[in-house]
């Protein structure tokens, strides 16, 4: 009876169908809820405001001596040839070298001492014998000048890390291991050919091993070359629950005994001059301050370090980005609501009826929330960093300089971190289909490990494991200063140092988001809606 009826033919032209259309639909969904746009703006503002707060709440001042007024600012921090902040304070016995040349010396002893402040805080303090600091070092050095931060290369013996070839503060090559004593002295040689410096080590002065060879581009013809000694401050780190860490300790000294000093090449005639590099610049080194010569033998006492400076002098740039947690919270809520909102109202049925390829719907949602969050995060971070840095500097703080590349990585990485966290939130929201539970789960997964690891609740080793395994590993992308192995510093999470490299940590977060998204996709395809 109805067989004669002809089916209706649509008069509406069929549009294109594909992922692009699904993506466009999801974007339309996002942009047409005003509350979500407002929340995104709030997320941006939160980071900026908290960045401002960080700057406003950090003041630095110093005085040049007892009785002098405090000055807003920070003590001078030398900058190395690579643009990084460095420590460059050591005892230097040197002669001018013009052109090529070579130095050879035998190190016969290393003696350590701990300096305790004397009755007069500005006085030299009293030193008591103490074990040699592991990174206390003495040896031969060729340095552009006695200016702090100038280029150098050195072949050194250390308290606990054997012979090293070090150059331009960040460079460090390991040589033969073993410590120095009267019974086991160590021969060192440093030669300069053009701008290439080569370090050698030997146990007997006849058989030499090459430790390393470096090119110091732009090294002037006339340089200072000679002996040096330095010993970094001792650091004992104690951690308080919920209150970060405390560093105790104090300056240390190293006295190195040398003999058989021999130079060749373009050395200027004259005596060896002693300079306390990084000292107040007025006094040279003499017998009272640690430079003694008895015929062939030389004894040199030094304090300080020639190394990169990454803690203690100022703020790392990522500290301006503490507001990322506020932004994260808002974007996690949005990421969750972007899908649970549909479940709550049954709109998910409309969505999946319109696009039966459910994986495509989830992917489109992930792209939209990820992209929105990335852009918001990028804007927020790009505004916050310069703004907060400006306030910090105005308040006298030193901010560790980092390369443009590292700066870009921190800012873009922060945006990427937020984007991946939002995608994780979307995935968890799809899995749980409940807003409150999903929001709490994601925030706990990301923020709680971070707090436990960095607020000094947990000891360093468990903290490191938390930052290797949990989504909080992703914050490694914000670490702007590397943890140099040639520093005996507490490179713990409590001080902002992550156990994983920036991109590796970020990859861990991505792994979590990827797994959650895969699980969400599987469940979304399998479940009835």
């Amino acid at each position, binding site marked *: 009876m109805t067989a004669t009826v002809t089916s209706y*033919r649509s008069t509406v032209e069929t549009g294109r169908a594909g992922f692009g259309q699904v993506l466009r639909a999801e974007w339309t969904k996002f942009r047409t809820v005003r509350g979500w746009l407002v929340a995104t703006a709030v997320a941006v503002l939160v980071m900026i405001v908290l960045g401002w707060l960080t700057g406003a709440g950090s003041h630095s001042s110093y005085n040049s001596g007892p009785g002098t007024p405090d000055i807003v600012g920070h003590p001078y921090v030398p900058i190395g040839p690579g643009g990084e902040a460095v420590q460059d304070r050591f005892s230097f016995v040197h002669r001018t070298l013009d052109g090529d040349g070579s130095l050879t010396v035998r190190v016969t002893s290393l003696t350590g001492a701990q300096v305790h402040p004397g009755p007069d805080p500005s006085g030299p303090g009293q030193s008591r014998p103490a074990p040699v600091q592991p990174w206390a070092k003495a040896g031969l050095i060729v340095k552009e000048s006695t200016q702090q931060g100038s280029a150098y290369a050195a072949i050194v013996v250390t308290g606990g890390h054997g012979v090293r070839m070090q150059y331009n503060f960040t460079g460090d090559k390991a040589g033969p291991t073993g410590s120095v004593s009267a019974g086991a002295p160590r021969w060192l040689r440093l030669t300069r050919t053009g701008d290439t410096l080569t370090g050698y080590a030997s146990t007997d002065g006849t058989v030499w091993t090459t430790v390393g060879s470096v090119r110091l581009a732009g090294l002037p013809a006339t340089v200072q070359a000679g002996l040096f000694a330095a010993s970094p401050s001792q650091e004992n780190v104690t951690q308080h629950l919920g209150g970060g860490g405390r560093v105790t300790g104090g300056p240390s000294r190293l006295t190195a005994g040398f003999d058989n000093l021999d130079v060749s090449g373009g050395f200027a005639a004259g005596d060896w001059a002693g300079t306390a590099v990084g000292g107040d610049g007025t006094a040279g080194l003499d017998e009272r301050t640690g430079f003694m010569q008895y015929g062939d033998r030389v004894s040199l006492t030094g304090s300080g370090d020639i190394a990169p400076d990454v803690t203690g002098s100022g703020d790392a740039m990522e500290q301006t980005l503490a507001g990322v947690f506020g932004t994260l919270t808002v974007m996690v809520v949005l990421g969750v609501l972007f899908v649970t909102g549909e479940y709550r*109202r049954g709109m998910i049925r409309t969505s999946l*009826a*319109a696009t*039966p390829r459910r994986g495509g719907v989830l992917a489109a949602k992930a792209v939209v929330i990820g992209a929105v969050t990335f852009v918001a995060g990028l804007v927020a971070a790009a505004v916050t960093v310069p703004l907060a840095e400006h306030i910090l500097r105005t308040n006298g703080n030193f901010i560790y300089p980092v390369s443009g590349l590292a700066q870009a990585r921190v800012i873009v990485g922060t945006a990427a971190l937020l984007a991946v966290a939002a995608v994780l939130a979307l995935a968890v929201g799809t899995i749980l289909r409940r807003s409150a539970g999903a929001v709490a789960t994601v925030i706990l997964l990301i923020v709680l490990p971070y707090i436990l690891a960095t607020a000094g609740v947990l000891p360093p080793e468990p903290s490191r494991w938390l930052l290797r395994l949990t989504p909080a590993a992703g914050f490694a992308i914000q670490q702007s200063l590397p943890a140099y192995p040639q520093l005996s510093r507490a490179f713990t999470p409590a001080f902002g140092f992550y156990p994983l490299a920036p991109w590796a940590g970020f990859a861990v977060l991505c792994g979590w988001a990827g797994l959650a998204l895969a699980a969400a996709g599987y469940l979304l395809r399998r479940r009835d809606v």
Partner: protein
Amino acid sequence: MEATIDVTGLRKRFGSTVALDGMTFSVRPGQVTGFVGPNGAGKSTTMRVILSLDSADEGSALVGGQPYHRLRHPLHHVGALLDAGALHPARSGRNHLLWLAHSQGLGTRRVDAVLEQVGLAKAARRRAGGYSLGMRQRLGIAAALLGDPPVLMLDEPFNGLDPEGIVWIRGFLRALAAEGRAVLVSSHLMSELQDSASHLVVVGRGRVVADTSVQALIAAASGDRVTVRTTARTEAMTVLARSGATVTVTDRDTITASGLPAGRIVGLLNEAAVPFSEISSHRATLEEAYMELTRDAVEYRAAPLAANREEAAR
């Protein structure tokens, strides 16, 4: 594409509850097919399975000969209204249609056209959260029409509509069917379908109880019952029973006979000279026919009033 829905042998259980128990029916173009049954009979589940939202344990549901999830532009083939409340309250009605349109590669022009078609153009830019139930139903119908599909599937579209809205939607559905579309409309109230549906699929407890045209259903429910008013009850009963009718006493002076047409009864009674004052053949309403069919299929039924009182007295 043929404008058809073919549902074959759908079975689905939720835990120990059987939701669909061999559901089988077809929807043809050019007519409005009513999909009726009591609450919990499996109407919504069937519709969700047709849309590939739920998966059936067994059986198949094809739209124009294809499973829904294979359709590239599903809204060009099937328009569905499942739950008119499924909206984000902060999004305007127009924007709700806009994202849906974008998902099918359609633009704003089509959105404005369907808004006009359902008479919602004026309110389109307001927050959907502020819409009345009737406006939401109109918006849901607009969404179903977005792809101008040959198949339409509406779940309880009469819910919450005022009388004017009900009249509008009946006419609208008939007009859509007249264009050659297949229209499936579910309802748990037969009366709502009375003037719009020409074909009925009656379901109960997850299976089809009747799949027939409206006329046939009414005829079947009416049966061939004939009421005879007579003062000579016993004689009439004897005469009719002898000729093969089943006779019951309905009242002091009426009996009901079934199994014989009315004309034959008149003849028999005249032949035997049994007096009677009225003979009427019974015609059931659609509602009665439906009640008859679904009596055993009702899942939730109010307890008889007496029982209620007893309960309350406790």
